[in-house]
């Protein structure tokens, strides 16, 4: 019954989104009375699809094996958390999560958006419904999560053990919220194009949604990076895997959009530019969805290969992006030019930020798509870290420089000499750091050296806007900017330190043997069998010591029963100055075990920085929303 209820709710939600689109269009064409129904429809639609999603969760929690999706991806012996999170650990479930988030975001706009003109809001909700409709069709015709299986099998297939980790409960929903949040920015842009309302008021209304999406993307990427780092046991934190790029590309576009929307809201500049970026950002989240969901890539993210699905998403992608570009082309003439500014100004720095972000986006996009295109023509090749690091690295460093200078420049017009004077202290610090690192770590490669030096410069420069201010009266969004920019510096320091100073040992060790890596001496004490709810494991016991104290690490090699798979669980010890990362490999049959040991100095800064970037975004969001509300109240009071 639950499955049928879920399917019915999904069909109803799809029908309502069609109605939402129809009423929206009718209202825009001057139909009386249609506009007032659009908001309630958006809310009811969200409630219905939310009910469908809850029904699917319920099926997974009960392990109802008469539902094909549950039988294929779940198992009655699985821990409760993974039964729950396993709901979206598969293709259909994750697509249902996608539209659920989309509908809820649409309902949130319908309920809470007050500053936008009514007409533009109706157009926005109609655009949102059009996006939703495509994905409802995809679910109902090509990925029905509620399909029954007759007869029901006695037991399910289980969930890929690599996904059986608390990260699964957090990483996909956050990332989807981010992707979908960008779709809201896109709908806003489409709405404003349709009603010819591109201007500061529209930018102010759009900004909180862009910020929220960007915060969630930042969190999702940071969490995904840490998850891959500790779960896969390869010691790396970013692999330039296409699915990682699929999440990075929307983030890059959203970051650019976030900065240009500020120019539009504050200075009424970069009008058409901002609208274009919203289109690009949404295109990138569609490309991301296509890469991950079409099965064109084989990895933990693409759960099954089905060419029909790939074609379906590709058609949706072409329709939405093509449609948006056509609309943009048709209406860009009606968007008036924004206010002007001098090249040396805050706007100028933000344009540079946008250009560099777009260049990085293009480089990542080409590197990700190129192998897929050549493969279609019969040549297989792979584009990996050598390409991405060498082309993206230098430009990312240039971007960090622009980021350090930007906040210290005045809006509209500034004098180069003054800017240089304000940058003297961070610049000096950077130079000192450069020399110190070069002297203390001879033979360091160029990129990590520049990265470390820049990290110090960026750190100092990002705090500079707070300098000589009354900190109590500093607006919250200035704090947010400072914290986010500092977070980039912190993350940069972590990346540079990890890449320059990591120590790695790979040995076959006997019990009782001591191996050293970095500052640690690690004694291989014992191996013991242990068991979990749905796995058994061989657990190594390692005692690590540096100077006085010592501590124990217990890396495992796990064997899961359903599906039968081996995974390795790295044991990681976090210290103030870095992480000790240990992996237990295979026995060699002669009494030795493979051990892979890393000492990674300051590697935690990478994710700490990522979290700071997100926290800064949150501060800015709170600050902006509060200020808007106050302004509106003041207006109403008059």
């Amino acid at each position: 019954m639950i499955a049928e209820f879920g399917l019915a709710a999904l069909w109803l939600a799809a029908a309502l989104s069609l109605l939402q689109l129809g009423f929206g269009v009718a209202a825009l064409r001057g139909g009386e009375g249609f506009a007032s129904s659009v908001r309630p429809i958006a809310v009811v639609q969200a409630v219905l699809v939310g009910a469908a999603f809850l029904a699917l969760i319920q099926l997974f929690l009960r392990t109802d094996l008469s539902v094909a999706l549950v039988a294929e991806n779940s198992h009655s012996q699985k821990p409760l958390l993974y039964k729950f999170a396993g709901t979206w650990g598969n293709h259909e479930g994750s697509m249902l999560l996608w539209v659920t988030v989309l509908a809820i975001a649409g309902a949130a706009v319908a309920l809470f958006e007050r500053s936008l003109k009514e007409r533009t809001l109706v157009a926005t909700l109609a655009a949102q419904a059009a996006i939703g409709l495509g994905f409802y069709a995809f679910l109902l015709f090509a990925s029905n999560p509620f399909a029954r299986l007759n007869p029901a099998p006695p037991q399910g297939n289980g969930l890929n053990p690599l996904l059986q980790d608390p990260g699964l409960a957090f990483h996909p929903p956050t990332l989807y919220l981010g992707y979908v949040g960008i779709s809201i920015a896109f709908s806003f842009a489409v709405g404003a194009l349709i009603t010819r309302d591109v201007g500061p008021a529209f930018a102010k209304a759009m900004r909180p949604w862009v910020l929220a999406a960007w915060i969630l993307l930042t969190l999702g990427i940071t969490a995904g990076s840490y998850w891959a780092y500790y779960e896969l046991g390869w010691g790396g934190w970013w692999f330039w895997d296409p699915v990682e790029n699929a999440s990075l590309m929307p983030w890059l576009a959203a970051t650019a959009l976030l900065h240009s929307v500020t120019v539009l809201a504050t200075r009424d500049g970069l009008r058409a530019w901002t609208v274009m970026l919203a289109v690009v950002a949404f295109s990138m989240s569609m490309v991301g969805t296509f890469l991950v969901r079409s099965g064109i890539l084989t990895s933990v993210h693409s759960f099954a290969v089905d060419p029909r699905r790939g074609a379906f998403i590709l058609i949706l992608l072409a329709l939405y992006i093509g449609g948006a570009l056509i609309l943009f082309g048709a209406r860009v003439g009606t968007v008036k030019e924004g206010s002007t500014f001098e090249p040396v100004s805050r706007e100028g720095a933000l344009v540079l930020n946008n250009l560099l972000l777009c260049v990085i986006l293009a480089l990542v996009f080409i590197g990700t798509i190129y192998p897929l295109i050549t493969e279609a023509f019969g040549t297989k090749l792979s584009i990996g870290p050598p390409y991405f690091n060498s082309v993206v690295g230098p430009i990312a460093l240039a971007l960090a420089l622009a980021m350090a200078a930007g906040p210290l420049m005045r809006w509209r017009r500034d004098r180069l000499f003054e800017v240089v004077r304000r940058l003297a202290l961070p610049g000096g610090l950077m130079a000192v750091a450069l020399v110190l690192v070069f002297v203390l770590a001879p033979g360091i490669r160029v990129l990590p050296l520049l990265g470390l030096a820049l990290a110090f410069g960026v750190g100092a420069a990002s705090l500079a806007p707070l300098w000589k201010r009354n900190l109590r009266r500093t607006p919250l969004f200035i704090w947010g900017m400072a914290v986010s920019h500092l977070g980039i510096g912190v993350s940069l320091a972590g990346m540079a330190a990890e890449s320059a100073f990591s120590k790695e040992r790979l040995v076959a060790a006997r019990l009782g043997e001591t191996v050293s890596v970095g500052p640690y001496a690690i004694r291989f004490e014992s191996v013991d069998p242990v068991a979990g709810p749905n796995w058994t494991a061989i657990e190594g016991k390692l005692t690590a010591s540096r100077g006085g104290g010592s501590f124990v690490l217990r890396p495992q090699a796990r064997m899961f029963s359903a599906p039968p798979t081996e995974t390795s669980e790295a044991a990681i010890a976090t210290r103030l100055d870095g992480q000790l990362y240990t992996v237990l490999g295979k026995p060699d049959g002669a009494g030795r075990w493979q051990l892979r040991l890393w000492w990674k100095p300051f590697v935690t800064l990478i994710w700490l920085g990522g979290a700071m970037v997100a926290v800064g975004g949150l501060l800015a969001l709170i600050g902006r929303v509060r200020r808007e509300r106050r302004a509106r109240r003041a207006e109403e009071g008059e």
Partner: protein
Amino acid sequence: MKRKDQRAALLILALVAMVGAVLLAMSGLKDRAAYFYAPGDLKAGQVPQGAVRIGGMVEKGSLQRAADGVTIAFTVRDESPNRIRVRYKGIVPDLFKEGSGVVAEGSFGPDGLFAASEILAKHDENYMPPRLDAKKGEHKSESLAK
């Protein structure tokens, strides 16, 4: 600057940036793309130069462990008569075993031995190199039918 001029200037800047990005990407791809070879792609007596990837099935019975306990050697085959001998030092991914698919990155020595710098963990137990995959069809449905 007039508003119109500023818009034109920004447009030109954006175009220049994009053209620059494409040129940079192309030069990067030329130097750093690793081509993918299956054993059947190799011509007798010739080995590809530079960093490449190879992929195929790990031949049953071909896996050998060296005395240091961390170096392994194995043979990669596909449906062609060609074979590639691979040497790798490191912990192999969890899904690596004889008779299953493998992708390795590295370079060929002059003797035809492939020195792998990395064994790629295709993190899906159903993963097959594309060429073999096409013949076996869908794995998902197969495993469910069992």
